[in-house]
C-alpha cells in the first residue's frame, strides 16, 4: 500500500506538471487578451509534432526538438495574435469563434503533413529511477517535472521582477489604465501570445515521447485544461497552477483506487462544486495575472 501511494504520487506529479504548463499558457492569453483560445490544445499538438519533425524526422537531439517546438509554437502564437485576435480585439466572441476555426485548420494541416495515425517516437531514454520495489520514475517523466518547475518559476520571476512582466500584469488587470500609463497593449498581447503558445508547445514537445501523438490529441488536453482554469479562476496564473496540481492529484488517485471513468466524473464534480461555492473559481476575482 505504501508503494502504491508513492507511485501514485509520482504519477500525479508528472500529470500536474504538464497540465500546469498548458493551463498557465491559456490563462495568460485570456488574462491579457480576453480571448478564450480554443485552439490552445492544438498548440500543444504542434509542439509534439515539432518533436516528430526534428527528433524523429531530422534525427536531431531531443533537446533541440523541444527548443524548436517552443520557438515554432511561439511564432504560431504571434501569427495568431496578428492575423486573428488583433483584428477581432473588440469582440471576444469573434476571437473565440476564430480560434475554433483555427483549431480545425491546424488539425487538418497536421493530418495532411503527418497522416492521421499515431506517431511512433522512440524513447529518449529508457532509464528509470527505482526508489523501491513498485516505486519508479522514468527519467523522461522526470524531465517533464523539472522543466515545468523551471519554466513556471522563470515565468513567475519574469512577471514579478521585470518591467515587461509588470506591463503584462497591468494589461491583464485593466487594459485601458495600462494604455494610459503608456503601455503598448498590442506589444503586450504579442508577448502574451508568444509565451502562452510557447508554454503549450513546450508541454507538447516534452511529453511527445510519453503520449499518443496524433492530429486530434489536443482535444483531451484542452478539456482537462478548461476544467483546471475554471477551478483555479479564469485569468489567475496562481489559480491555474494550484488547480492543475489539485486536479491531477484527484484524477490520478481516483483512477488508481477506482477507475478512469469515475475519475473523469469526479473531475467534473470538482469543477461544479467550485462553481457553486465560488463562481469565479478559487482565485478568480482577486488575483489575476
Amino acid at each position: 500500500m505504501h508503494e502504491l501511494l508513492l507511485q501514485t504520487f509520482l504519477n500525479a506529479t508528472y500529470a500536474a506538471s504538464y497540465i500546469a504548463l498548458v493551463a498557465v499558457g491559456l490563462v495568460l492569453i485570456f488574462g491579457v487578451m480576453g480571448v478564450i483560445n480554443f485552439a490552445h490544445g492544438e498548440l500543444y499538438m504542434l509542439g509534439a509534432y515539432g518533436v516528430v519533425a526534428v527528433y524523429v524526422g531530422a534525427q536531431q537531439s531531443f533537446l533541440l526538438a523541444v527548443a524548436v517546438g517552443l520557438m515554432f509554437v511561439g511564432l504560431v502564437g504571434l501569427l495568431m495574435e496578428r492575423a486573428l485576435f488583433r483584428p477581432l480585439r473588440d469582440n471576444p466572441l469573434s476571437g473565440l469563434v476564430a480560434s475554433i476555426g483555427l483549431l480545425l485548420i491546424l488539425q487538418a494541416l497536421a493530418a495532411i503533413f503527418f497522416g492521421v495515425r499515431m506517431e511512433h517516437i522512440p524513447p529518449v531514454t529508457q532509464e528509470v529511477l527505482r526508489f523501491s520495489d513498485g516505486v519508479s520514475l522514468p527519467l523522461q517523466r522526470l524531465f517533464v517535472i523539472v522543466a515545468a518547475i523551471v519554466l513556471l518559476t522563470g515565468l513567475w520571476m519574469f512577471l514579478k521582477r521585470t518591467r515587461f512582466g509588470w506591463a503584462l500584469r497591468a494589461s491583464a488587470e485593466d487594459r485601458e489604465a495600462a494604455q494610459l500609463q503608456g503601455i503598448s497593449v498590442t506589444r503586450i498581447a504579442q508577448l502574451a501570445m508568444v509565451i502562452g503558445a510557447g508554454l503549450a508547445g513546450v508541454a507538447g514537445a516534452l511529453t511527445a515521447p510519453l503520449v499518443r501523438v496524433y492530429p486530434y490529441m489536443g482535444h483531451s488536453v484542452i478539456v482537462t485544461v478548461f476544467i483546471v482554469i475554471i477551478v483555479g479562476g479564469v485569468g489567475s496564473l496562481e489559480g491555474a497552477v494550484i488547480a492543475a496540481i489539485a486536479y491531477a492529484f484527484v484524477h490520478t488517485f481516483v483512477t488508481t483506487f477506482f477507475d478512469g471513468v469515475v475519475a473523469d466524473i469526479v473531475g467534473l464534480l470538482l469543477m461544479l462544486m467550485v462553481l457553486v461555492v465560488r463562481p469565479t473559481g478559487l482565485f478568480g476575482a482577486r488575483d489575476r495575472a
Partner: protein
Amino acid sequence: MKNLKNFGGSFSRRRLLAGANALSVSLLSSGLFPRLARSGEPIKIGFLAPLTGEVAAWGKPGLDGCLIWAEWVNALGGVKLGNERHNIEFVAYDNEYDPGKARTGAAKLIREDGVQFIMMLGGDTWPGVQPVAERSGMLVSTLLPSDLTPDTTTLIAPAEVHPIYNVTGVEWMAETFPNLKSAVICAQDDALGLPSLATYLAAFEAEGIELQQDPLLFDPATTDFAPIVTKMLSSNPDIVSLDTCYSDYVHPICEQLFQQGYEGKVISCTADFYEQIIEKTSKEFMEGFIFQFPDFDDPALNDPRVNFKDPNDFFREYNRRYPGEWGAVSWEYASIMDLWKEAAEKAGSAEPEKVLAAMKSGGKGAHAFGEANWWGREFFGIDNALVGNWPVVVIEDGKARVKAYKSIPDWYDRHGELLIRHMEALGQMYYQRG
C-alpha cells in the same frame, strides 16, 4: 382552375400505369436499389470504413489490402458471372467512425456509385447504415459481429468473430502455462472494449484464472496510462490482459508496464505495429506476448486448411507498397472479398440477395483460417457469423508467430453459458443492446 380541369381531364388508367412504370424505372436508375453491372462493366464494391481519425488503423490498412486483392483478381480476369467476366472496382468512403457520415456514405455508395456489396468496420457506425441497408436490401459485411441481431438479415460477419476468438488465446495460454493463475484486465469503456471484456472474463473463469481486481475501465480520451498500470500492477498479477484496446492504447500501456517493472505475461486482442512497441520497451519484455493477429509471412499460414490465397506473397506485396503499415485488418477485408467472389461466381450474379444465398448455402463457408460454420443463432439471434478456427499468435525473438489454431465452436460448446452470463452482466447480448 383551368389547370386542374386539364389535369383531371387528361388523367386516365393508362397514364397512371405509364406514370408508375416511369417512376419505377427512375427509382431503379436513381439507385434506390442496387444496379446490376452490364457485360464487361466492372462490379463496384463499397468500402465504408474509417480512413481518417482515431479508428483509421482498422479501416485504411484494410482498403490498402483490398486494392492489392482487386489488382490480383483483375489480372486473372476478374469475377466470372455466368459466361461474363467483370473486373472489381472498389469505391471508398471515409466514415470517420461517425454514424451520420456512415449513413451518408452508404446512401452515396448505393445510389450514386451503384455498388453491389459494402464492407464496413461496423461498431458505432452500423446503426447509421442499418436503415439504408434494410431499405435497399444491400449486402453489408462487418468486422464486428456484435452488430448482428435477428433484424440484420443482410449483414454478415464473415471475417472475424470479435471478440469471441479471444478465448482461443486464453485457452492456449492456460494449456501452455498452467502455473499462471491470476490476472488483471483493463479496457476502454466503449462498444469494442466491453464485449471483449466479457469474453476475457469468461475465458479466464473457464480456465480457473482468478481476476485479482475489478476490470479497470478507462475513458477513450485517456492520455496518461501510468495510473492505470500502477493500479493493475498493485495486485502483482501473473497475467495482464489488454482486452481489445486500440493500438493507440496498447503501445503506451505496454511502455508503462515495462517502465514500472512488470515481468509477467501480457495477453491482448491485437498488437498492431508491435515492432514499435519493442522499440519502446525491449525484445525481452515483449517475448511471449500473446495476441490474435498473425503476420502473413508466417509459415504456419501455408497450412492447407488456410483458405487465404498466397498469404506470404500478399504480406510481401503489402509491405512493399505500404512499409510499416501492416495491421490486424490488412488482410481481413480482402478475405471477405475471397468469400464474396466465390459466392458471386457460384450464384452467377452479383445481386446481393443471390450472393448471400450462395454464400450461406450448406451452412458452411471457406473462412480465411479454414472451413467454418455460419453460426450465431443463440449468441446474435441470427446465423450470420462465419465461425471456425482462429490463430493464437505469440511474439518470439521480436517476431509474431502462429503457435496454434484453436476452435472457437469447440470452446463455445464447452463454455458458452459462461460467455453469455458475462455478456449479459455487461449488457452486451443482442437483446440488451439499444
